[in-house]
């Protein structure tokens, strides 16, 4: 195992993560703020009133399960159990799909393990007609909005049931009917598109808002700047979410951020409202999103939310995280697990217990296994995808021009 190189041998500063494989990670320096959650200002406040929020951390759930403070939302036990189920379905699906990729059933997969509360809490706070511009780690939004898990799986399997006819790699879903924009493989590009979507909504005097996502790593793309800048200039009704899960493949967040500032703080200088939230705290995510949605819908413009969380799994099926960070880092990460934290909250409320939790976990697993079986029967990469090859010539344009028709005929000839 390669060891950390001695260090810079010049004045060029290159940031390094605190721990690498072989180190014993110790996050005791990251204080988990218990009481200094910032106050909840009026959603239509002057953006300057939120500049402190960019540096602090909005939290609702204590580790004890208690929900406290200004931001504590008003959610019924029913809604919370529903959320828990979405979290657990998401995790179960990720688990299953990862394993099936390992068996060669699909080319690739990406888990959202550890970050499920960001997606689910966010989805709960929006209307289904609000358009999400997601990354590949917001599958929880689709699941919470009730998209067909079978269709999602078929997309990953690139099979006959794939609404995208096998055109895209796994996880790059498109579900317009669920307000879920087609995911691009190119990082960052959708941020500014979401701002444009919101501008169109304002132009049409419609109430719908856009919510755009990026990982903390991809904030370095120009599109992030475009998004903040255009959102500020035109007061676009949207939410700009940075999911800071600490890692961008093998690069720790200090490569994207520098070491001096939070990602939420990026918004301050553009005159945007800024919130920073414990992304493993579903109630906090919900509350922050609600606040930002209310602001956007009422003409207050965009909010930049940093969701502070941790990517527990590898980046994708293509990498092994123990090659660049300590194996047990996910366990010692001081903000806990979002499912565990919501579970403890529900138990604290006496609306849940361990037995029901185990039963639900089992139910999710079984349900996912059944759906998967059903999906896989429509084809997979290890066997036959059952996708018609000729579909590759479709949807390049609305109507295929002559040169594409000619190529279709060439393909016919070579397929004989």
């Amino acid at each position, binding site marked *: 195992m390669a060891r950390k190189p001695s260090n810079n041998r010049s004045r060029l500063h290159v940031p390094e993560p605190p721990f690498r494989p072989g180190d014993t990670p110790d996050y005791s320096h990251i204080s988990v703020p218990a009481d200094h959650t910032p106050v909840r200002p009026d959603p239509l406040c002057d953006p300057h009133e939120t500049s402190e929020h960019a540096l602090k951390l909005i939290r609702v759930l204590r580790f004890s399960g208690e929900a406290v403070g200004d931001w504590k939302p008003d959610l019924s036990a029913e809604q919370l159990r529903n959320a828990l189920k979405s979290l657990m379905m998401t995790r179960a699906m990720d688990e299953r799909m990862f394993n099936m990729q390992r068996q060669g059933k699909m080319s690739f997969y990406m888990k959202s393990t550890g970050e499920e509360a960001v997606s689910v809490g966010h989805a709960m706070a929006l209307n289904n007609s609000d*358009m999400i*511009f997601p990354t590949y780690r917001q599958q929880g939004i689709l699941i919470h909005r009730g998209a067909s898990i079978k269709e999602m799986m078929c997309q990953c399997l690139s099979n006959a049931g794939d*609404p*995208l*006819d096998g*055109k*895209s790699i796994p996880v*790059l879903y*498109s*579900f*317009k009917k669920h307000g879920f*924009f*087609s995911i*691009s*493989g*190119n990082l960052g*590009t959708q*941020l*500014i*598109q*979401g*701002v*444009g*979507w*919101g*501008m*169109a*909504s304002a*132009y*049409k005097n419609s109430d719908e808002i*856009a919510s755009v996502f990026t990982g903390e790593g991809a904030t370095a793309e*120009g*599109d992030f700047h*475009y*998004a903040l*800048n*255009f959102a500020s*200039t035109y007061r676009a009704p949207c939410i700009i979410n940075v999911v800071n899960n600490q890692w961008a493949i093998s690069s720790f967040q200090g490569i994207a951020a520098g070491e001096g500032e939070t990602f939420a703080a990026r918004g301050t200088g553009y005159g945007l409202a800024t919130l920073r939230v414990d992304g493993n705290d579903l109630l906090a995510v919900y509350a922050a999103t609600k606040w930002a949605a209310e602001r956007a819908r009422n003409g207050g413009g965009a909010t930049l939310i940093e969701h502070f969380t941790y990517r527990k799994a590898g980046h994708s099926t293509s990498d092994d995280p123990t090659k660049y960070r300590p194996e047990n880092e996910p366990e010692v990460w001081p903000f806990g697990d979002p499912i565990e934290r919501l579970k403890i909250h529900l138990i604290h409320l006496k609306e849940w217990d361990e037995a029901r939790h185990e039963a639900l976990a089992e139910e999710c697993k079984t349900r996912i296994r059944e759906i998967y079986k059903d999906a896989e029967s429509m084809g997979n990469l290890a066997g036959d995808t059952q996708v018609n090859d000729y579909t590759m010539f*479709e*949807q*390049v*344009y*609305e109507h295929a*021009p*002559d*040169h594409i028709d000619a190529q279709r005929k060439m393909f016919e000839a070579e397929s004989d």
Partner: protein
Amino acid sequence: MAQLNMIEAIRDALDVKMSQDSDVLVFGEDVGYFGGVFRCTAGLQEKHGLHRCFDTPISEGGIIGIAVGMAANGLRPVPEIQFADYIYPAYDQIASEAARLRYRSNGDFTAPITIRTPVGGGIYGGTTHSQSPEALFTHIAGLKTVIPSNPYDAKGLLIAAIEDNDPVLFLEPKRLYNGPFSGDPHAPAKNWTGNELGEVPEGHYTVELGEARMISEGDDVTILAYGTMVWVAKAVTEEMGVNADILDLRSLLPYDLESITNSVNKTGRCVILHEATRTSGFGAELSALVQEHCFYALEAPVQRVTGWDTPYPHAQEWAYFPGPKRVRLAISSVMETA
């Protein structure tokens, strides 16, 4: 029928579509109150409102980025890039996003956007106000690229582009805005008055994307051109007394293969003209197509007349520009052989 120059024809097309369809929005750097550095959007903000024709930050990537999002939300944005030389910061949004959205979502989302931008040299714009980057876009599946050479086509093509449900790059040869150009910088500048293609009908009409226009007909040689070079071709062939089929391609992707092959099969000789840098220019594709489809009819090698493989220099503008001398040499050579 009005006598319009190309700027007026473009403005008219925008006005027609903005009047017909509230989903059509025009935006870009300086296009709003000021009406654009070439005046193509002058008066549109005053007539249609601040929210329909507005200034943007200087951010070509952002401009096309919001256009994609707006289009996905049902609008038909018509963004302007101030000079084609400045389109590169938007290259990713055009090639990876606008052109791919329909495909990657299998038709779930689409991007009906028309990107207007001035191209070409002839105005002493130097390296960064003279480029003709069309070949960087004709390689992009999912995108259409058109380029008018006259006011009539400019209006009709622009309306067709805006109505098209796919993204269209609409290139405006800036040297032609005020009149056709023979390629001789010392000749007195012409305007569009008196040119029949400067006669522009009022109201709505379209020129179909993908169809070439026959500028002149003749049996001696086929000249494939577009934009400014159409008028250089016309001037040179007239001066030489050559009977040429001059095809103004108008649309580069899709291209009008039928008109091209019909003509070359008839003449057996072909010269291709463009201002852009030679290597990997669109002329290469045309040359390849011609020899693939007309191999047995060809009596001489297909010739390309192009800008040189250098950036567009400032003081050496007319040494770089593929002007009458270069065109004449190529036509002579293609007609002499065999």
